[in-house]
């Protein structure tokens, strides 16, 4: 008897636990899982699967009966006879690398400098962050004032005659500079928040150990900010994949400014109604994004396991 009780008790306890889950609780849990799942399926998975299916068809977007099955023709066309596609892939990659290199490092530098609470740092903080508040549409408009060939500030001041937005060799970089102008402030703010969160005693300890400012930053502060770095990494990848507004404002993503997102829009939004073709482009974009998302999730999960 006495030996039986300890084995029986846990079983009873387990039963009680299961019992607690049945009834109302189970309903609540079911709702809490079910509703978001339904939403995700409805708003994310169905459209995604719909796009994949549509990408094998030709459809003008009006009547469902008008959908024609064309197999992989859209994909073949994109890869072979659609001239803007390969430049678009290249431009997206350049965008990604550029955002990593320039605005991220610059933003970090600005954050470190502004973190020193020098005179007027609030003002600079606001000034650098201001572009982030503006929509990219407005950013495009503001930079048009600088870049216009005949009436723009840059050509007027330097007496140059560069066709900033029109020359396909130059315009991508011109647009990237405009993007960087906005993106730097964003990164700066995130790092600034991160720096404020770093425990002051770490700095003191480093200073006591005789580390220089630079060493302190790279060997103490930067590693501590690992979560912030991850966030920045993700933001940069997302921003470069969804880059769209600025090139759309400049010239609808043509003539040297092709980006996959802009090509999708050209084919689907507006008067062109190549839904099948546009979907195929969107699927390609989705596949590329998934690669990055998979890498990111793997890193995050590995970290959690640790």
């Amino acid at each position, binding site marked *: 008897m006495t030996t039986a009780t300890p084995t029986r008790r846990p079983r009873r306890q387990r039963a009680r636990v299961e019992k607690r889950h049945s009834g109302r609780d189970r309903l609540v849990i079911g709702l809490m899982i079910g509703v978001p799942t339904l939403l995700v399926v409805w708003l994310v998975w169905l459209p995604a699967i719909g796009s994949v299916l549509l990408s094998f068809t030709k459809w*003008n*977007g*009006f*009547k469902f009966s008008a959908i024609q099955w064309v197999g992989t*023709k859209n994909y073949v*066309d994109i890869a072979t*006879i*659609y*001239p*803007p596609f390969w430049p678009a892939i290249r431009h997206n990659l350049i965008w990604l690398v550029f955002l990593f290199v320039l605005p991220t490092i610059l933003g970090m530098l600005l954050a470190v400098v502004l973190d020193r609470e020098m005179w007027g740092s609030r003002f600079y903080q606001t000034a650098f962050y201001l572009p982030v508040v503006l*929509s990219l*549409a*407005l950013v*495009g*408009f503001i930079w*048009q*004032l600088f*870049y*216009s*060939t*005949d*009436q723009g500030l840059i050509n007027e001041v330097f007496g140059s*005659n560069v*066709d*900033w*937005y*029109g*020359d*396909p060799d130059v*315009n991508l970089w011109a647009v990237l500079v405009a993007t960087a102008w906005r993106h730097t402030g964003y990164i700066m703010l995130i790092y600034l928040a991160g720096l404020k969160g770093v425990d002051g005693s770490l700095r003191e300890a480093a200073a006591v150990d005789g580390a220089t400012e630079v060493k302190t930053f790279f060997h103490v502060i930067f590693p501590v900010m690992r979560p912030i770095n991850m966030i920045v990494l993700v933001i940069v990848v997302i921003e470069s994949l969804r880059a769209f507004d600025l090139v759309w*404002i*400049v*010239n*609808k993503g*043509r*003539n040297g400014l092709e980006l996959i997102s802009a090509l999708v829009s*050209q*084919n689907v*939004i*507006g*008067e*062109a*109604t*190549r839904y099948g073709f546009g979907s195929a482009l969107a699927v390609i974009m989705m596949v590329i994004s998934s690669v990055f998302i998979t890498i990111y999730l793997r890193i995050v999960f590995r970290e959690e396991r640790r």
Partner: protein
Amino acid sequence: MARPDPRESRFSSTLPASVNGFGRRSLLRGALGVGALGATGMLSACGDDSTSGSGSGASAKAGNVKFGINEAKGSGPANERLQAMADAYAKKAGVTVSVNAVDHNTFQESITTYLQGSPDDVFTWFAGYRMAQFAEGGQIADISDVWPLDGIGDAFKKASTAADGKQYFVPVSYYPWAVFHRKSVFEKNGWTQPKTMDDLTALMKEMQGKKMTPFAFAAKDAWAPMGTFDILNMRLNGYDFHMALTKGEKAWDSPEVKNVFATWKTLLPYHQENSLGRTWQEAATSMAKGDCGMYLLGTFVVDGVPKEAQEDLDFFTFPELDASIGSDALDAPIDGFCVASGAQDEEAGKAYIKWLASAEAADAANNAASAPFIAANTAASTAKYGELQKKSVEVVQNAKSIAQFLDRDTNADLANTVITASLQDFIKKPDDIDGITASIQQQAKSILG
């Protein structure tokens, strides 16, 4: 996508236009437009104004109508004209006309979703393939029973007719494309308007000698260079070829099309450089300033030049290139109205649209607005027309064939995703005519076939 449209220019307050086309003068308007864009994603978001009248002369079929217009409130004369027409009809027929005013580019870009949702009974639209595609798809109603319309000629009827031979559109106004220049510049240099290609070539050479670029040229808006393609195509191959090509009956890599590009290539050195980064407003400004001698554009060019230069503008039609083809064809895009098939009250819509095509409607519009349009109805009063508009009427009446515009006549998929980019490619690489035409044809075959 931006369109060559007189209203669009006035419409520089829409976002893309403002950014594309910006002159210092339109900066403020542009900034306002940015705000407006933020607020309007949807067609129904703009103004919703109802004007009811209590007039007595209601016709039998007239009823309350919802009227969708592609000019936002406060966007200038274009909106004033449409609003005035709605008001005048409400008063005359004793009905309510609910105006749904939407920004020009937003309206155009959302047209497919607009027509699939619950469109207004009557809405502003364009003639040509752009109308015919919706007729074929069943989104707009057959209104052949309101035709014939008093004062509307055969050329307009042809432009209002879809592939099935029925009318789906009524015209209200149009604007021709021609070569514009400043009268004072020509007078000062003793130049006259060229009648032949030889005259034009001599004139261009003389302008170059005076350190003036003969033709202002802008291709940042991808539709703008289509005007040059169209006029060369119609001079070299004729109106019928233009129509056959845009309908997909002729190949884009045919010798005729290659000839158009080859001719264009010889003319490119007389055009402004760096055109791919320039908006038409900037090109118009360089003509107004006298940096460039001429500019091939629609009459909406007046909106791109300062007030004092507006009075000084004159134009001529592009000279003949081939004696057997002549020079009696030109681009003169027509704007007008359609009745949506999903209209709540189709009869009321038809009654309204019939009135909209009348001289009375055109007069109501022009009398109320600060700038008039060129009415499609020949009986409309020309009292408010300026010199340019009077001359436009004359030129269009003398033209034997009137094309809409490359992107108004062509399949929208092909025009917006292929031809736009290809013309820009040609401007970049004028030596690659074979490659560019072959690429257009491949894609055209895939899209149309």
